[in-house]
């Protein structure tokens, strides 16, 4: 891992904020488990019994995995293996939670089949989203941390809130659109807070890997995909349990899978949390605190509003009868969530344009300073994902896989160097300014070593 441009002997103040946030979250989880156990009876007690250890295991696995990359590469494999085993146990426990919550009773098999059905589609979604970051892809370990947070931590955080709100609504409001609006407010607010906190923590703790709006959108969408993965399992299992006695539980669960994992994969949660991430990503590059607050608030509010609009007003969308209903339900997703997804794509395009022109400028400056890290002829290749890919494929054909990987690594370090220069130019470096060039020098050394 490359050190930041201005490494400091002490942790920056944002770490304290991140630790405080994490502490508040843990307290919230424990308090909510006690409250739900006392108020809502035996099933929530069992959820807490399996759910809290699952959350603790995910947190532990995350910590070990992130630390693994700071250690001696010889020891890294052992730590990663340990993190993977712990994460696996956490996921199994969570599947038990899902089943218990839904009283399927007879088996965890329904939840397991649902999970297996959702893995390929969610994996495809994560692959696509990560590839959207054309210039500097986020490391897999952080992408998977975001996905795991969305799947396990965020869903656990909102169970108590959604259940309690549902109880309040059922006991106080007139059934109908008013009640739907009330629960939609709750779902929008609590779910977007729970998911968005993952992006905030990445922004606070992993600043070196959180460069701009593009990164915010990628991390946010990945959290949303993780949340959608677990919610799909939950709904599929629930719907199966409801319709099993009628003999079409499997068909009903399959329809849920189709609408959540195919039609709605990039709409819904992925879009909402990408909007939260966009706000945080824009804030990353703003100089004044009040601007940062406004950008983050804007992203969070539009995510809550988009989520609310879907939950509250879904019922008003006319889907028609018979064969037209099939078209209607697809149109509903496109017309109700599509505009928000389009906004995410617009922000992504704007972010890529800003990032692309900044990298081109920095690569040209680096080529002009004569360090040898970037040759003038390389600038055109490095600024075009297509030409980078062509160059790698040419090397693969001529010199084999090892040369391909070496060139891929070289291109990545050269782009990291340009990114580091961009942050220095924009004065986005933290703390005292002694030795702001240290990371750049290290990156240049790496480039020259790879070229040699």
């Amino acid at each position: 891992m490359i050190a930041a441009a201005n490494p400091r002997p002490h942790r920056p103040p944002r770490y304290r904020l991140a630790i405080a946030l994490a502490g508040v979250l843990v307290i919230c989880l424990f308090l909510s488990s006690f409250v739900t156990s006392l108020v809502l009876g035996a099933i929530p007690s069992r959820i807490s019994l399996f759910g809290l250890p699952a959350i603790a295991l995910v947190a532990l696995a995350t910590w070990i995995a992130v630390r693994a990359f700071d250690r001696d590469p010889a020891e890294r494999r052992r730590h990663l293996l340990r993190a993977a085993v712990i994460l696996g146990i956490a996921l199994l426990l969570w599947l038990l939670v899902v089943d218990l919550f839904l009283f399927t009773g007879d088996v965890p098999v329904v939840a397991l089949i649902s999970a297996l059905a959702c893995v390929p589609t969610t994996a495809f979604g994560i692959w696509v989203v990560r590839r959207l970051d054309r210039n500097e892809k986020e490391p897999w370990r952080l992408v998977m941390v975001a996905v795991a947070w969305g799947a396990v931590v965020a869903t656990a955080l909102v169970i108590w809130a959604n259940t309690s709100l549902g109880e309040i609504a059922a006991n106080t409001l007139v059934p109908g659109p008013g009640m739907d609006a009330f629960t939609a407010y709750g779902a929008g607010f609590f779910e977007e807070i729970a998911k968005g906190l993952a992006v905030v923590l990445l922004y606070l703790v992993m600043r070196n890997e959180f460069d701009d709006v593009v990164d915010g959108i990628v991390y946010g969408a990945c959290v949303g995909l993780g949340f959608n993965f677990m919610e799909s399992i939950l709904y599929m299992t629930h719907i199966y349990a409801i319709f099993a006695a009628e003999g079409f539980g499997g068909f009903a669960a399959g329809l849920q899978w189709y609408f959540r994992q195919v039609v709605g994969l990039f709409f819904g949660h992925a879009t909402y949390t990408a909007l939260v991430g966009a706000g945080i990503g824009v804030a990353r590059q703003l100089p004044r605190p009040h601007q940062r607050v406004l950008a983050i608030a804007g992203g969070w509010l539009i995510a809550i509003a988009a989520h609310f609009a879907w939950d509250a007003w879904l019922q008003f969308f006319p889907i028609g009868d018979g064969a037209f209903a099939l078209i209607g339900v697809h149109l509903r997703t496109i017309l109700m969530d599509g505009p928000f997804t389009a906004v995410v794509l617009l922000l992504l395009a704007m972010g890529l344009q800003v990032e692309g022109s900044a990298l081109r400028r920095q690569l040209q400056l680096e080529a002009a300073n004569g360090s040898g890290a970037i040759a003038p002829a390389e600038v055109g290749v490095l600024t075009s994902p297509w030409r980078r890919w062509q160059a790698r494929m040419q090397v693969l054909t001529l010199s084999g896989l090892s040369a391909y990987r070496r060139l891929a690594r070289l291109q990545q370090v050269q782009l990291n160097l340009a990114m580091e220069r961009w942050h220095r130019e924009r004065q986005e470096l933290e703390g005292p300014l002694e030795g702001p060039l240290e990371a750049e020098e290290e990156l240049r050394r790496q480039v020259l070593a790879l070229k040699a």
Partner: protein
Amino acid sequence: MQTRDEVGPLYRTMVTLGVVAVVILVAGLVDFFAFEPLGQKTGAHATVQGVFHYDPGTHQVSGNDSRRFTIDDSFAAVVDWTSLPTPMVVAGRWYNTLGTAVGGVGPRPAGELGDESVVPVKIPEGFKHNIPGSYSFVVERYSQGQPVEVLARRLVYVRSAA
């Protein structure tokens, strides 16, 4: 500074989106209060005598007041409509776990509902059983054609198996 301006359009977009969000959320509040209007408390309460096993053949209830049934059980709420002012327009409705109305009476003036004190749950069309999950029975007061106040409420749970 020139380089700071490159993020300016993104910042302004985020602020604009925040404003759009506030408009959507305010529209949501308007929607909420349209269906949950303020100032509708009359202080009236309907008496639900209980939820009992129900015989669709005889239209009679039997057994004790219960909160748990199975998907094969027929059950019905029994309402004492005389507990409400005679001209008050009311309805009794069952909602299943999906929020779908599955049986009910009214809306009509409470005085006209004396013969319909037993309100059964209906199995949805095309289904062989009740669907499992939480069911709620509500007595609603109507005003200008829409329900505006809940006068009584009972929740029961329907299990998958006996």
